[in-house]
């Protein structure tokens, strides 16, 4: 199992350009999340999804949009990139609290599993 994967790994944008970050998970998790991580700070939640076709705002949603058309994928879009969006972006997924399954990974019902991150620079 690949777990949580993210593409691309790196990207450089000019101010005003748009792009989409893709997150995919093969653990059949209902919940998916997008975070950003800035130097000296913890992870801040941008948007999240509790199931296919649903999305909701997190702590820092401005300037981002998301879509969850398929259960395994969660897309993060920047319509008009700004230098303030220079950051490392992480996707995560988790199972609902009452969902128990055991597969190749050592699951915890509440734990979020993270992808490797996308390093985005906006010039």
């Amino acid at each position, binding site marked *: 199992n690949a777990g949580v994967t993210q593409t691309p790994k790196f990207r450089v944008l000019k101010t005003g350009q748009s792009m989409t970050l893709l997150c995919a998970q093969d653990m059949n998790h209902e919940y998916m999340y997008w975070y950003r991580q800035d130097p000296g700070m*913890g992870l801040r*939640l941008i948007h999240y999804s509790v199931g296919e076709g649903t999305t909701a705002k997190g702590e820092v949603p401005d300037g981002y949009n998301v879509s969850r058309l398929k259960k395994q994928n969660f897309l993060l879009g920047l319509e008009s990139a700004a230098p303030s969006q220079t950051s*490392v972006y992480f996707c*995560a997924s988790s199972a609902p609290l009452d969902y128990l399954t055991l597969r190749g990974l050592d699951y915890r019902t*509440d*734990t979020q599993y*993270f992808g*490797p991150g996308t390093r985005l*620079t906006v010039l």
Partner: protein
Amino acid sequence: GESVGLHLPTLSVQEGDNSIINCAYSNSASDYFIWYKQESGKGPQFIIDIRSNMDKRQGQRVTVLLNKTVKHLSLQIAATQPGDSAVYFCAENTSGGYNKLIFGAGTRLAVHP
């Protein structure tokens, strides 16, 4: 490129010593806590978790202690190894809803030979 972890508090230990990383959490209603390890250039990786009905939980070389009275969490790493060098984050969660985690800012652990 950017370096996640700039300006973080740093704990420096000698290889073989025990490490203790502390975390103060904010929400007295939080009932589930997780420690994550993040190596340079990688995503956070689950280490150990603990529920609020417990005071202590042990894993392989790691122990998490929870003091709900003062809202304090600690991660103890026994016989610290160079591979333990990373940034460590605590996260708190309130059961119910969508499993929202609130992350601390992190502590950098530097292990010296």
